[in-house]
């Protein structure tokens, strides 16, 4: 049975890991490659690395980092942050990323989604959408939630799918950083509306929140992404997966191989 995915997200600035609380105050929490390996060993199903560097040097450090991650990690990973052209995406995919996530640039130029999808395949295009509820409307924001666009969440998500998005990663800017739980009603609606996987992000404070957003009676999301609760060890992935399984949610259990393999000398 296809399992629900648990995805730790690492924010990267100048090649180092940080996590923004409500995207404002930044606090360094470690070396990306060793953190990534630790998460992979714990049973993370996938990883996301978001580059929040503002400088050219920072962005170069990020693509170098992507190469190191690809060499050292044996599970899929997505990279994003500031991808505004097919060339930006191409550099990161060639460095070894499995998927790229596009956000603000796609809102400005939706054709970017179809360009990347037609060149590299839909499977590597994650469209990240940030939105805030204004009255009864979920309005799409850009630039880390600081600017409102004229788009509405559900119609934009559908358009992104039509343009070739392989997955939708939705973050509620009203929930992000609050640790008060995900916007489950929104994920439920997105998941029913779209034919592609939906990744939930923003608001996880404990294991119960993740159970709720992945549950068929809750958010119906295909994957849950979180950062702080994993980085600060408030939720440990093996415990989380055990609790998910106890609640009837299919998850990948730890690797089942026997003795380590010894490769013969290969000429």
């Amino acid at each position, binding site marked *: 049975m296809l399992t629900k995915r648990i995805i730790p997200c690492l924010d990267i600035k100048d090649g180092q890991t940080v996590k923004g609380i409500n995207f404002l105050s930044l606090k360094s929490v470690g070396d990306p490659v060793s953190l990534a390996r630790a998460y992979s060993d714990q049973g993370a199903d996938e990883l996301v690395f978001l580059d929040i560097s503002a400088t050219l040097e920072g962005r170069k450090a990020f693509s170098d980092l992507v190469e190191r991650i690809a060499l050292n990690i*044996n599970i899929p990973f997505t990279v994003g942050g500031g991808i505004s052209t097919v060339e930006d995406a191409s550099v990161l995919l060639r460095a070894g990323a499995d998927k790229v996530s596009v956000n603000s640039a796609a809102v400005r130029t939706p054709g970017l989604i179809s360009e990347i999808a037609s060149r590299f395949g839909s499977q590597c295009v994650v469209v990240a959408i940030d939105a805030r509820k204004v009255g009864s409307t979920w309005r799409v924001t850009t630039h880390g939630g600081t600017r409102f666009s004229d788009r509405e969440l559900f119609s934009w998500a559908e358009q992104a799918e039509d343009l070739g998005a392989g997955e939708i990663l939705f973050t509620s800017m009203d929930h992000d950083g609050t640790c008060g739980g995900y916007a489950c009603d929104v994920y439920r609606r997105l998941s029913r509306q779209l034919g592609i996987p939906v990744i939930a992000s923003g608001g996880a404070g404990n294991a119960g929140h993740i159970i709720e957003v992945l549950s068929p009676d809750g958010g119906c999301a295909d994957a849950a992404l979180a950062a702080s609760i994993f980085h600060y060890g408030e939720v440990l992935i093996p415990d989380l997966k055990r609790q998910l399984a106890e609640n009837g949610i299919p998850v990948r259990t730890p690797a089942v191989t026997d003795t380590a393999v010894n490769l013969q000398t290969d000429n």
Partner: protein
Amino acid sequence: MTGIIDYEAGNIRSVENAMKRLGACYAVSSDLAFLSGCDRLILPGVGDASWAMTKLVEKGLADFIRNTDRPLLGICLGMQLLCSRSEEGDVDCLGIFPNRVRHFSSAFQDNAALKVPQVGWNDIVSLKTGLFDGVAEGSYVYFVHSYFADIGEDTASVTEYGIPFSSALCRGNFMGCQFHPEKSGDVGERILSNFLRLRP
């Protein structure tokens, strides 16, 4: 020496990285003379089946693959290309495995709620062949695909997504896996290690 067959399809980089992690000696090539001398071959691939078949024929690789006696592992699209025919672009493939490749949406009946592509970790059961030495029934591996090979006598592992399908195939020296062993954690590395121990 393991030869990774280069026909301009994607995902070669991730297969190369897995070879490096496993300490294997490998080279990426489309040169028939070089590939003929390799101990074993990998046919990777992400993309469109009809485009890929055109490339394989153009480069003379289609006949080479059909006739090789080396252990050969097709990964993802690479496995589908070893089948008889694909619905993707309605194209004849290499015909090593008699299985046909279909789109999930043409196979789903009561499972319209399932998303296509299948993205994520699913389990493999009814494991056959040395590729799965040391891999337990029900292990999880990583999939990203919209097309699948049906079940047949060459089926070497079964996975279910709406319907059961061949997540691996094997016939003589030819093997294929629909999932990505290079992205499937320790289980995937075990499968690749098993392949790397095979000799002509």
